[in-house]
């Protein structure tokens, strides 16, 4: 079976487009789609210059998505003086799992000669996820605690580095799942938030008055399997293991549903995202005007509408402490 572009041996078939591609053309295809997304989303501001470059903080977990993202960003922008890249790895304190994923991050950033920072929940919050999952004081899935801590850590380091943007490795499957979860929950405010937080192009989002560092997801057009395939073909150092606490059951149900739909109707995920993005834009326009956090947490200063932010609530609940506590 041959590549539709050059006749060499095909390594994959994209059912949604009908194309068979060889290793080289497949990799080129992923790279061009990511670059197109970066252009379409106006990720690189016109105001960025060699004298005043933009700083992009990249969340690097060691998994395939963030490794591929970091690799592609370095390949595209390493010699572009308008962009400074910093990779940030968060060590959650999961025995046997995070140490191995951290090694993958270090191997990658050494290869790429990219600035790399490692922070840990233990240092930042006085907690480790293994203990949090075992104690579970709020009766939530481990991912619910971990997501709050991770987002806070990424946001605070983005502030510390003066980052203009925070980039994460969410792929097409991740985004289609989130879109379906938001739609099925009927939470229009969450849909609107999704648009302004990370989904919309920077030309369409309202980010200037937001207290959060704006986020972007350059891989969001790439199916998850293609991200894994790219990492394999490019021989990237990827940590291949499942988080022992991963347990988002509802997301798993949505994932299985989407697999079935995509198998039977190739292109479903792309169609979901195309329509959802338009709906999200409309929802965002309708919901703007003073709904974002307007205050600061009494304890850590993070943006929040409450006296104390969600992160600090959880740090207390799990018996952790902030660096400033004593």
């Amino acid at each position, binding site marked *: 079976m041959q590549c539709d572009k050059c006749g060499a041996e095909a390594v994959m078939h994209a059912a949604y487009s009908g194309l068979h591609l060889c290793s080289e053309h497949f990799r080129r295809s992923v790279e061009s789609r990511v670059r197109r997304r970066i252009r379409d989303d106006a990720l690189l501001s016109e105001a960025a210059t060699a004298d005043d470059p933009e700083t992009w903080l990249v969340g690097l*977990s060691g998994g395939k998505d963030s490794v591929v993202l970091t690799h592609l960003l370095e390949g595209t922008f390493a010699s572009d003086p308008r962009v400074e890249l910093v990779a940030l790895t968060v060590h959650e304190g999961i025995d046997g799992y995070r140490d191995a994923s951290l090694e993958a991050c270090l191997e990658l950033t050494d290869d790429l000669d990219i600035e790399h920072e490692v922070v840990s929940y233990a240092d930042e919050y006085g907690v480790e996820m293994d203990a949090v999952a075992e104690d579970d004081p709020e009766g939530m899935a481990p991912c619910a605690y971990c*997501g709050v801590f991770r987002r806070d850590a990424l946001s605070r380091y983005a502030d510390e580095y003066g980052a203009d943007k925070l980039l994460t490795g969410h792929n097409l499957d991740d985004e289609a799942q989130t879109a379906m979860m938001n739609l099925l929950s009927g939470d229009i405010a969450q849909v609107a938030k999704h648009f302004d937080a990370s989904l919309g192009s920077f030309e369409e989002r309202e980010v200037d008055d937001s207290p959060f560092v704006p986020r972007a997801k350059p891989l969001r057009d790439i199916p998850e399997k293609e991200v894994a395939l790219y990492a394999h073909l490019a021989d990237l150092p990827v940590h291949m293991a*499942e988080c022992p606490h991963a347990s988002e059951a509802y997301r798993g149900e949505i994932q299985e549903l989407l697999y079935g739909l995509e198998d039977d109707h190739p292109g479903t995920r792309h169609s979901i995202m195309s329509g959802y993005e338009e709906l999200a834009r409309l929802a965002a326009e309708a919901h703007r005007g003073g709904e974002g956090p307007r205050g600061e947490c009494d304890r850590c200063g993070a943006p929040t509408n409450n006296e104390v932010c969600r992160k600090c609530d959880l740090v207390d609940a799990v018996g952790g402490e902030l660096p400033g506590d004593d």
Partner: protein
Amino acid sequence: MDVTCEVLGGGTHELELDADATYGDVLEAVGLSTQEASVLVGDSPVPEDRRIEVDSVQVLRLIKGGATPGGT
């Protein structure tokens, strides 16, 4: 036809498939969607709609979990 299928990080399966089976049929036989796994022949991926030409394959599957809840 008989095909030995090693799911990397999983187990090894001895499959009995139709003579005109494709690599996609291998994935189906081990309970994986074509959206979540790739078939490797000699470390190189192969298209799922290609007819099987070997008696031993490996499967590279996606790792579950890890996406930030909410995904905003």
